């Protein structure tokens, strides 16, 4: 394999990890790569916390009686699970970790446009996290991650304001990250790097940033209004003065539907990088995939009402939202088909990142197609607020987005840390995750159509068999997530050194050393070709 051949005999090269040491050099860093790693630490902690709650949820649901926790404890569990996983793990995961690390490198820049703002974003994110964590220690919150009024504004006795504030604050970190990316991508590309030479990961980051910028503020103001209503006992969602609880839902979903594309677009970007790398060929339909990213970002803002089909919304509005939701499936379909077509006549190696990515395509397709079922008005009438929904979104978010995130981590890990992880273990983990995932969440589709409502602490006994399956699957899934955690840690100390381009991939990030120097490149690169330029073998250094 590729050991330190390049650096043999020389003094250790300085790179961003060893330029300076000590906690201060990390906490005060403005280097986008180090900030990416700071985020990696933060989101992993939140994921573990949310994961532990998921385990407790599944433990409770293994029996129908609701005997492990009190009802109100259970309600806090799934609420905190949803909030931590969505706002503190999945939304920042790929953008803030991989995006931070890769965006400047992939466009040949020395750093993001606003490095100090970038560090500030990380602090803001953690302050928001601390608020939420504080609330968690003091009993948490029990409104569901959706905070529907008037339950959240009037009836809940838990720390709604603290958590809303936590999310509000963390939202600013999203906004600032998005702002940083947009400005960087617009203004700091290397010479020759035109829009249609950008890697598709950059396109998806750009589309994601658009949603950050235009969606997050609406959530912020909505949460502010909710907090004010709780504080002053009067406000604009209050039915007592003619307020409409549905307005809260409109405003909430105006952000939160696009937010699901915040979660999946970056994963799609990762997929678009990994597939050509492991099929060693140019991606099929580059432009269509690029446009589809932007189309998803825009169309994603037009469909929020599909969460309110049975909420008391006018049926005419529901019809409009339904047809628009159907449209949004088209760009997703375009992507899936283009990825699949890329495999045709490729030279495919089943490395770990590729395993995750192929898993992503399959599970995302299933999650997406069930999404289309939900967007079908007649079906949603029955399955709204049942486990069918729970299964749908875990298929996309856990089966899709997290698979993409893990695939990306495995793909760029050698670049980020300069170390290689054990191949066999990583493949085993990928398979365990895939199996555990399906065992956990497939039964939930059946449960949902049977009519088991979500957010249920206890349930009728005839649903038990499927629930036990799901709980058993969650155990497998949990093991699957812990294995990478172990070998990633292991690799940082004991892993072999990685070469600049361990996969033989094409892209600016593979042209610099692993790990890259603080300024990313020795000299500013000049781009002269299309992305994914795999045709001539000479260009792929045979380092494998």
């Amino acid at each position: 394999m590729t050991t330190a051949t390049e650096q043999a005999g020389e003094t250790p090269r300085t790179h961003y990890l060893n330029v300076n040491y000590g906690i201060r050099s990390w906490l005060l860093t403005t280097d986008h790569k180090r900030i990416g790693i700071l985020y990696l630490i933060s989101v992993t902690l939140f994921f573990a916390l949310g994961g532990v709650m998921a385990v407790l949820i599944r433990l409770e649901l293994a029996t129908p009686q609701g005997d492990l926790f009190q009802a109100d404890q259970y309600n806090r569990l799934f609420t905190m699970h949803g909030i931590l996983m969505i706002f503190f793990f999945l939304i920042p995961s790929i953008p803030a970790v991989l995006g931070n690390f890769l965006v400047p490198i992939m466009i040949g820049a020395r750093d993001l446009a606003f490095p100090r703002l970038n560090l500030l974003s990380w602090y803001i994110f953690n302050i928001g996290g601390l608020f939420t964590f504080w609330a968690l220690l003091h009993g948490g919150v029990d409104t569901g991650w959706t905070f529907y009024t008037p339950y959240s504004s009037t009836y809940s006795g838990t720390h709604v304001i603290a958590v809303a504030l936590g999310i509000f604050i963390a939202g600013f970190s999203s906004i600032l990250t998005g702002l940083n990316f947009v400005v960087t991508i617009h203004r700091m590309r290397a010479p020759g790097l035109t829009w249609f030479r950008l890697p598709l990961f950059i396109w998806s980051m750009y589309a994601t940033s658009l949603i950050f910028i235009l969606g997050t503020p609406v959530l912020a103001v909505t949460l502010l209004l909710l907090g004010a209503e709780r504080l002053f006992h009067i406000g604009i969602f209050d039915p007592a003065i003619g307020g409409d609880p549905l307005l809260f839902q409109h405003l909430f979903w105006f952000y939160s539907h696009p937010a699901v594309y915040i979660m999946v677009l970056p994963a799609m970007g990762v997929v678009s990088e990994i597939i050509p790398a492991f099929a060693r060929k140019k991606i099929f339909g580059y432009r269509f995939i690029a446009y589809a990213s932007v189309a998803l970002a825009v169309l994603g803002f037009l469909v929020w009402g599909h969460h309110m089909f049975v909420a008391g919304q006018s049926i005419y509005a529901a019809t409009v939202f339904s047809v628009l939701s159907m449209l949004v499936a088209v760009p997703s379909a375009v992507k899936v088909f283009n990825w699949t077509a890329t495999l045709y006549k490729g030279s495919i190696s089943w490395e770990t990142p590729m395993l995750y990515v192929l898993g992503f395509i399959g599970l995302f397709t299933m999650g997406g197609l069930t999404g289309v079922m939900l967007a079908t008005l007649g079906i949603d009438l029955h399955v709204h607020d049942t486990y069918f929904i729970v299964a749908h979104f875990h298929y996309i978010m856990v089966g899709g987005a997290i698979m993409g995130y893990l695939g990306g981590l495995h793909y760029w890990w050698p670049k980020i840390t300069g170390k290689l992880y054990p191949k066999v273990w990583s493949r085993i983990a990928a398979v365990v995750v895939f199996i555990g995932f399906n065992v956990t969440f497939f039964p939930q589709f059946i449960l949902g159509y049977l009519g088991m409502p979500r957010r249920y602490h206890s349930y009728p006994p005839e649903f038990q068999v499927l629930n036990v399956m799901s709980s058993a699957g969650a155990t497998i899934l949990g093991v699957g997530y812990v294995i990478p955690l172990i070998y990633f840690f292991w690799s940082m100390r004991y892993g072999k050194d990685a070469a600049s381009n361990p996969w033989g991939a094409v892209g600016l990030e593979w042209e610099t050393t692993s790990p890259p120097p603080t300024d990313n490149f020795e000299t500013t690169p000049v781009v002269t070709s299309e992305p994914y330029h795999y045709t001539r073998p000479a260009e792929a250094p045979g380092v494998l």
Partner: protein
Amino acid sequence: MSSDAISLPAHQFDSLEQQREVASLGMWVFLATEIMFFGGLFAAYTIYRVSYPLAFIAASRQLDVTLGTLNTAVLILSSLTMALAVRGAQQGKRAPMLAFLPLTMILGAVFLGVKAFEYHHKWVEHLVPGAGFLLPGADARHAQMFFCLYFAMTGLHALHMIIGLGILTVMLAMAWRGRFTSTYHNPMEVSGLYWHFVDIVWIFLFPLLYLVGRHG
């Protein structure tokens, strides 16, 4: 710090020119988020106004148009002085900045003073939503909705003004120390954009809140 230290671009940029464009684009993108932030409130306003037109008319009549118009004029004037301060910065002249920045801040403070006076009045007149709310005549419940929105919208606007005053204080200090030159004055430009944006929000708030159904 010496002035030539600042006339070099920061390390991630190739030129001052690029740095300037980046700063301005960054601010504009930030303003886009601000538009959506206020946008949530504007949407709520539109929906309730359409739902309860009579209550909104009745409630809006309780506001003082004279003070509202006055405040609009004050804010527009402050935008002018801000523009002139930025112009000074663009030319690298210290004197206009030192004259117009404080003037802008004073006008901002006047605006906030008037606003505080209006708030106080509403309190005295029992027009603050809640248990003490008292609006003679029709549909007091929905009129409270108007006042909820009124306080939320003008309150957030005032908060932005206060933040703006903080920013201008920093600008004043920087200008005082001669930090700005005709080649480097991004902070002034960008603060100016922010201030004007806050002005624009008011330009919309004023007719929506004060001028509903004044006729007839």
